[in-house]
């Protein structure tokens, strides 16, 4: 009987050690992340996931942050907001993370927001819409430029070209419709008139019907497409197919990856879009403050992930380093102190721009963070900034 009980005790002790062990093995700081690594928004979550893993390894190899190794916990919500909500609770209650980076989309972010706000754990979102940070929630930040900013950047460019009557074509996914709303709100300020609006489903494979209607609408001087995923590539191709090239086409920052140019092919020539400096890393003048960081990130990402860099992964990079800097400054793993330091982020140079946060601005980017790009011969051209 005795050996059996002894063995049993050993097994139980082992199990306890195995369960409780890793968390206490050494000084670590636990950072959580919920990303849409699979599902319809996987082209956002996938590079974000790769970026976070890549750079956390790097940071740990270099000794960690403030003497702590980072332990990264990533969950894949598959784009499902309800699942994201559950993982958020899991990160807080079970994993006891000190901070969170993620929420690939606005939808998942908004579902998780109350959890982190309630638990008082800082949450740096990678979602696009302005509603994430407006109104400001104490514990919620974000790194990607807002859709409102994208609209404004596009409208600025339109104004420069003296184009005032536009058609809007929007994807009916969260990104597309949110930006559509923001553009509609921002248009009057720039004297832009939206003559006609069309939409397409996120999985539609042919937009010629919608574009034909726009083509046949009198007085359209430019077309703005708010959307992400494969939709804008098809819009661009159908646009060329219908011979609408004479009317300028604007895409959003939702297509900010080289793969858009590949998918749209020659049809992409002449398309303009607002995007972060990351896309034109090597074309930036040497004195550009972002030059070093974006060139480095691009090289690191493309070497490790073996796919073209996108601004989406860049947002995760920015989020991670804003957080790491804040932890260093706070010299603590107390979520509240980390939050305070994140809010004090000033002059942080990231892939998305230069971040200056404040208690009223949890994004910290202005319009200058956006560059207006044009596609020429299968590559991005940096448009001269407005004089």
């Amino acid at each position: 009987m005795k050996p059996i009980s002894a063995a049993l005790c050993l097994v139980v002790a082992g199990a306890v050690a195995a369960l409780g062990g890793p968390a206490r093995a050494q000084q670590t700081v636990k950072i959580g992340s919920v990303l849409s690594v699979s599902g319809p928004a996987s082209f956002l979550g996938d590079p974000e996931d790769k970026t976070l893993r890549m750079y956390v390894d790097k940071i740990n190899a270099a000794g960690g942050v403030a003497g702590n190794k980072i332990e990264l916990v990533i969950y894949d919500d598959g784009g499902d907001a309800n699942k994201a909500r559950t993982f958020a609770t899991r990160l807080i209650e079970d994993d006891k993370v000190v901070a969170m980076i993620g929420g690939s989309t606005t939808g998942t972010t908004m579902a998780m927001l109350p959890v982190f706000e309630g638990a008082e754990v800082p949450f740096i979102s990678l979602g696009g819409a302005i509603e994430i940070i407006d109104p400001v929630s104490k514990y919620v930040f974000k790194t990607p430029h807002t859709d409102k900013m994208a609209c404004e950047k596009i409208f600025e460019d339109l104004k420069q070209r003296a184009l005032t009557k536009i058609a809007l074509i929007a994807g009916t996914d969260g990104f597309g419709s949110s930006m559509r709303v923001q553009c509609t709100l921002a248009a009057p300020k720039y004297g832009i008139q939206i003559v006609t609006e069309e939409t397409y489903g996120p999985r539609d494979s042919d937009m010629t019907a919608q574009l034909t209607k726009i083509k046949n609408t009198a007085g359209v001087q430019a077309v703005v497409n708010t959307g992400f995923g494969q939709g804008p590539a098809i819009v661009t191709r159908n646009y060329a197919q219908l011979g609408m090239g004479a009317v300028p086409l604007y895409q959003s920052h939702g297509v900010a990856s080289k793969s858009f140019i590949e998918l749209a092919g020659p049809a992409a020539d002449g398309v303009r879009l607002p995007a972060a400096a990351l896309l034109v890393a090597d074309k930036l003048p040497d004195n550009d403050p972002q030059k070093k960081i974006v060139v480095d990130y691009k090289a690191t990402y493309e070497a490790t992930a073996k796919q073209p860099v996108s601004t989406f992964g860049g947002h995760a990079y920015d989020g991670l380093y804003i957080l790491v800097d804040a932890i260093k400054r706070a010299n603590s793993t107390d979520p509240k102190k980390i939050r305070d330091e994140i809010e004090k982020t000033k002059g942080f140079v990231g892939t998305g721009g230069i971040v200056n946060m404040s208690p009223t601005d949890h994004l910290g980017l202005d319009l200058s963070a956006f560059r207006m790009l044009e596609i020429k011969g299968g590559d991005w051209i940096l448009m001269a900034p407005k004089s």
Partner: protein
Amino acid sequence: MSEFVQFLMSGLTVGAVYALVALGFTLVYTASDVVNFAQGEFVMLGGMVTVFMAALGVPLPVAALIAVAAAVCVGLLLYWLAIAPSRGASPVTLIIITIGASILLRGAAQVLFDKQFHKLPSFSGDVPVNLLGAAVQPQSFWVIGGTALIVLLLYLFMERTVLGKALRATAANRLAARLVGINTTTVMTLAFGGSAAIGAIGGILVTPITLTSYDVGTLLALKGFAAAMLGGMGNPLGAVMGGILLGLLESFGAGYLSSTYKDGIAFVVILVVLVAMPQGLFGRRSVERV
């Protein structure tokens, strides 16, 4: 006029793909009474395998052949490993199995390939053809023509070959077919392989236009199922007509009514048709035998 033709061609192109998926549904359903919700994944496999084979430097036609072969293998494996062992299970159980298969295939594709969108070069260039004032991509003719050819071949197969007749007999009455010596297992194997091949060919034809990624299958399965039901389940002609009609409904709905509600318009029409004709447009009206 040019507008009308533009919508028509757009609807026909999209509809042709729906028709191929619906045809796959119908083929499997007639042979085995299984509604195969993994049907869309064959389309995905056709596109994705071709893309990745081509990326490895395999010439496009060879890559396409490999893709079709791969899809057929998956179709047969699905039958042998999942459907055949569940013979006699209730229809919903079988549906859930195929849904599980669809999740599995999508999950495997995201690991095996990647989560990016991909395209194939158009078979005969990207210069639009002017058709009565409408600009049509040359690839559209490939899609429509390819679909027509598949339908024709399938028709000849069903009408002219012993195996085709066996398939029709099995569809009409499985027990009777077995009694007259038809090997219904062969027929079902054939149906699963055939539907996979049809789906894969559809995927290859359409990828230059619609792009592809690991998860294109879900929506196509949904639309293909709707098309098959609209036409009348178990009737190949109905599947093709249902698919084309669905494509046209979406395209004309988007063009003339509302692009936002185009899918809604299509489903309202389907609902109205089914309420008026409970067996679909071309379905057999069955008399209840008691």
